[in-house]
């Protein structure tokens, strides 16, 4: 490999780091601003039993996670097989965990508030 190309590649890597930093900062600022303002139409409109605001927070968080893993942890330069091993394992197991626990949590809440026992006396 010629010396020049190595140099250019490293300059590119640095640029990428700062780009990702700016993206992460902007996303965080957007989250904080939304969290403080809490716009009414986002809070009071639900999509699949979660308010739009919370969906926005969750989607932005996943976008941030993508940038951290892909750019900072260099996942984009790893073999596709390694990427799949790490990402799909997480995606499947975590979705399962979340689905089970949130469905059960909602069920328990129903029993808790609508059952025949008073919890607040």
């Amino acid at each position, binding site marked *: 490999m010629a010396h020049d190309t190595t140099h250019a590649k490293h300059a590119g890597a640095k640029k990428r780091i700062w780009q990702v930093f700016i993206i992460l900062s902007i996303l965080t600022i957007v*989250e904080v601003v939304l969290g403080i303002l809490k716009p009414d139409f986002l809070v009071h409109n639900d999509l699949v039993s979660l308010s739009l605001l919370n969906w926005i927070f*969750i989607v*932005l968080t996943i976008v941030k996670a993508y940038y951290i893993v892909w750019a*900072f942890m260099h996942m984009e330069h*790893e073999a596709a097989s390694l990427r799949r091993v790490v990402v799909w394992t997480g995606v499947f*197991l975590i979705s399962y965990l979340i689905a089970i626990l949130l469905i059960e949590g909602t069920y*328990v809440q129903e029993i808790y508030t609508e059952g025949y026992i008073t919890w607040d*006396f």
Partner: protein
Amino acid sequence: MEATTVAKTGTEGQAWGGGEEKPLKASYGKLMMWFFITSDALTFSGFLAAYGFSRFKFIEEWPIADEVFNHFPFLHGVDAPMYYVALMTFILIFSSVTMVLAVDAGHEMKKDKVVTYMALTILGGIIFLGSQAWEWKNFIQGEYGAVETRSGKIIQFVDADGDRIALGEFATASPKDRTQHLEKNGIWYKAEDSFNPLALEDVKRGFEANETLRVRTMQITDEGEKEILTREESLLKLNTTGVGVIEGANLSQNEYGAPLFGGFFFFITGFHGFHVLSGVLILIIVFFNVLVGTYEKRGSYEMVEKVGLYWHFVDLVWVFVFTFFYLV
């Protein structure tokens, strides 16, 4: 796929060298770090999903994060929801940036730059840990205090405008006869409970004397705010159901609401803080190895890359904790 991974780690030919054909085209150390990170990510997901479970169970009475985490250094008494955690998030993201710059400098074999960036990363980690300690201090100390009811719920107090009011502002402690628990006059292996000079009777008396005060329950209304009772209901609630005064938080009760809320706060942010602490320690070890030239001699800074992976993971976890604990 071009390989930016540095192949040589000084373990070639040994049992853990990984051989010629590297599985998943990654070195042994990096592969194991990725596997560790995957399993650790599942642990944290378990915690956060359990938090979600409890939150959904107590969906109508969970504490509102903005009201609990609203402190900022040097701004005493100013309501500053989330600014502080946002600052902590920035500190951690920035330390992630310096970490990835250190890794990048390692690829170029520039020892001095690796040293500088790693030092900055360690500094960021220490600042983050200090911030978390301050956050814990505020949480444990509490601000307004509350009364626990006989069913284990929390009632808080508001003034005429519906703003929170601290117990100390309307109740004064009355003198009480009290025998101190000493080793010689009690059970020697039991320590004395922490003593709160403000008793339930003092709070009741102060509450009755101030006509404008009212009780705020844990129940969340349709407007997303805590329910405030009328004066009559407030008096009834306090006098018939109050069993004790709570100020601050510990593992079994807290003044913010459901006891589980305190438990999850201590456990999730504590477990993350422990990760940051161990990350800082590993960074320091690697930092000294860089200083004495271990990796320069080895011809590869892959160790910096591996600790970098861990450090970014810690940042990644914080991004999720930030969302689910403070925002949602």
